[in-house]
C-alpha cells in the first residue's frame, strides 16, 4: 500500500485514493469510515464517547461521535465530496467486560453505536455496512480505492465489508 495513515484514539483523518487508513484495537470505541465513491475520498474517525460535554467544553472534538462525524463530513466537502454521495461503514462498540454490578457499566459501546447512527442520520449519510457490538476488539482497515472496510480480530478472524 502506497499510503498508510494510522488513526489513533479520538482522532480523525480524511484523504484521497490510494490511501489506506488503519485504526487499531477498537473496543467500546467506534470507527466510522466515510466514503465518496466518485471523488474517491475517504475519512476514518475513532470516537471514544457518544456526546460532546457542552457543560465542560474542551478542544477534543474528535473524541465524541456527535462532533467528530460532522467535522469529518465538512473536511470531505472541502475536498470536493458531495454529501448525497457519501456513505458510511461502522465497526466497534463492543462490550468488552461482563461484570456483575448494579450500575450501567459496560453499556458505553452500545451508546457509542447509537450516537454514531443518530449523528449519521441527522447528516443524512446512509450506513451501508456495520460490524458492531458483541464482545471482542476489532482493528479496522479502510481502503479509499474502492471504499472497502476490513475488520480484523484476535478470535474471530477477518471480515470484509
Amino acid at each position, binding site marked *: 500500500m502506497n499510503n498508510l495513515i494510522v488513526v489513533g*484514539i479520538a482522532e480523525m483523518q480524511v484523504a484521497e485514493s490510494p490511501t489506506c487508513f488503519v485504526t487499531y484495537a477498537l*473496543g467500546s470505541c467506534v470507527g466510522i469510515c466515510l466514503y465518496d465513491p466518485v471523488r474517491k475520498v475517504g475519512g476514518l474517525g475513532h470516537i471514544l464517547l457518544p456526546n460532546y460535554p457542552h457543560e465542560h467544553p474542551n478542544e477534543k472534538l474528535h473524541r465524541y461521535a456527535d462532533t467528530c462525524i460532522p467535522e469529518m463530513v465538512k473536511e470531505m466537502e472541502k475536498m470536493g465530496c458531495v454529501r448525497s454521495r457519501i456513505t458510511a461503514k461502522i465497526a466497534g462498540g463492543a462490550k468488552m*467486560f461482563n461484570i456483575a454490578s448494579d450500575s450501567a457499566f459496560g453499556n458505553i459501546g452500545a451508546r457509542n453505536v447509537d450516537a454514531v447512527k443518530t449523528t449519521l442520520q441527522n447528516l443524512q449519510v446512509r450506513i451501508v455496512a456495520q460490524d458492531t457490538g458483541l464482545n471482542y476488539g476489532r482493528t479496522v482497515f479502510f481502503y479509499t480505492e474502492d471504499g472497502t472496510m476490513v475488520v480484523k480480530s*484476535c478470535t474471530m478472524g477477518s471480515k470484509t465489508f
Partner: protein
Amino acid sequence: MSIKDFSQLNDMHIDVLREIGNIGAGNAATSLANMLNRQIEMRTPVVRIMDIQDVDKAMGGPETPVVAILVELFGDIHGIMMFVAGQKFTKTMLGSLLGCEDADCMHLTEMQSSALSEIGNIMIGSYVSAISSLANLKINMSVPGVTADMVGSLLTVPAAEMGADADKIIFVEDDFENEQDVITANMMLIPSLDSLSTLMNGLGIAL
C-alpha cells in the same frame, strides 16, 4: 476542595500515589506468592501517571494479546481497577494453578478463565484493601470480569466508562520474580476525579 484535572496534581501528590502503588502492589505480590505457593519477589514497581492513549504503547502496542481482569470500585470512592497480564504471566499462573503447561491465552477454557478471574480478584482485593485501610475509606468491589483480547481494545474501556474526566490513569508496572524468570504484570487504578480528591483527603493530603 477538589481538582478539575489530573494535570493539577503536583509532585507531592504523585509521590503519595506512587507510595499507595508500592504498598498495594506489595500486598498483591504477597497474595500471589501465597496462591502459587512459591517464592515471589517483587521489584520496586514503576508508578506513572499517564495518558490513556499512551498506555498501550507501554505494553507493546495496541494489538498485543493480554488477559485483563477488571472490577468496578464503589462506596466512598468510585473508579475502576484493572489487572493486566501478558501471555507469559498468564501461562505461568495457569501452569502453577492448573498444571496446564501450554494454555492458549486468546482461547481460554472456562476453567482457565475462572482461575484467572480469581487470581485477579485476590490481587486487586489486596491492593484495594491496602488503600482503603491507609485512607480509612470504605471501598467495595464488583464481581470481576475477565477478558482476553488486544490490549488497546481493553484499555479504552476504563477511559470511556469513567467519562470525559479521566484522561489520565495511575499506571503501576509490577515485575514479579519467581525462581525461573521475571514476569511482568500491570495494575491500573482509575479513580474518578471526585474520588481522587476523596482519596487524597483520606490520606491527609490537601489538594
